[in-house]
């Protein structure tokens, strides 16, 4: 599941929990420019699909990566 209040989901024993952005817009951020917003949405949903493909033993929180761009920068240095 994708949810903006993952602590509640984990406490309720949901097994695969992906952190969403905010209650009012869990799967994206309207304050971002459209391209960045879409990138964020894809990262969140990709994390959810990855979570589905991950064996878990119990309630597990999955954090979408901060950004595709920042990932590259870290690896390059």
């Amino acid at each position, binding site marked *: 599941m994708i949810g903006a209040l993952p602590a509640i989901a984990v406490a309720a024993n949901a097994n695969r929990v992906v952190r969403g952005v905010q209650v009012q*817009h869990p799967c994206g951020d*309207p304050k971002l420019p459209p391209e960045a917003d879409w990138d964020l949405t*894809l990262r*969140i949903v990709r994390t959810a699909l990855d979570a*589905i493909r991950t064996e878990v033993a119990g309630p597990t929180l999955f954090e979408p990566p901060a950004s595709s761009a920042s990932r590259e920068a870290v690896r390059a240095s």
Partner: protein
Amino acid sequence: MAHPVRVVHYVNQFFGGLGGEERADTPLQVREGPVGPGRALQQILKDQGSIVGTLIAGDDYAAEREGEAAEAIGVALAGQVPDLVLAGPAFDSGRYGLGCALACQVAQSRGIPAVTAMYPDNAAIITHRRELIAVPTGVDVIDMPRVLARMAALGLKLARGETLGPAAEEGYIPRGIRRLVTKDRVGYERALELLLARVAGRPYASEILVQQYERVPPAPAPRDLSRATIGIVVSTGVVPRGNPDRVPGARALTAGRYSVDGLESLDVADWESVHGGFNTRILNTQSPNYALPLPALRHFQAEGVIGGVYPFFFSTVGNQAAVGLAREIGRRVAREFRDAGVAAALQVSG
């Protein structure tokens, strides 16, 4: 009482020996004497109680044709003139639980005490907690003899005109009725005692009971989703504009089922969120896709990461949803997804 208590027992089509799901629409039938588990119940009652009749009603009939069922039960009770009605046990069956609740309510409205038994998270307890005296059960029918004994004991007490003590003492599901009592020590002293006991690992009894959530074994992870169908479930209340099924903004009892077949994205002109627990302005004026990421899923479908999206999504509102009812919704959704070969479900909460 000198003479045995006259008991009427209410059961569903399965325990009444009529059949399974295919007989769930059976209207009320009245039989003389005990039927099915009623026979064990009669043995437990011995000479203290006599099951003079059994009411058998199909699960769907009782849960969906409430008015008719209530009337039929009333007529049957008027004929049998019992001192006590025992209903179930329904264990974890939601529809059977509702049928038992109905039987108890009709009995009580005619001044006849009634006792039932079911799993504490049964949907019937969620909706009728205040009105029912229900023995708590697990989900396993193997518990039947113990449960019947408890039902009989509580029932006989009520039939004899005795008042019941608090739920924890008498062994029934708490009705949520608060009575003021005076404790021998003030709150902060009792709180400190609880804290010290908990820290020291000694047993303690919380004065306020916190909901425990059951653990569900995680589904095994599919390795590859490229040919998998993903099913969508949301508790963000996304519905077609106008809310044709009148999904409520809080305390929802059911989920709507809507088609996204052939849709790439949810247009704000055609969809809205009716969730009453948060500000839905962004969803309703900019994009409902923030609460149901259809475009992203279509993107992954086009890229071959997933095989496809199940053409129907289920939508309810998570605002103050009762756990038992949420579980019933989840079960129905899971049944349809499983029967359709959906590989995984994506759920979105606020």
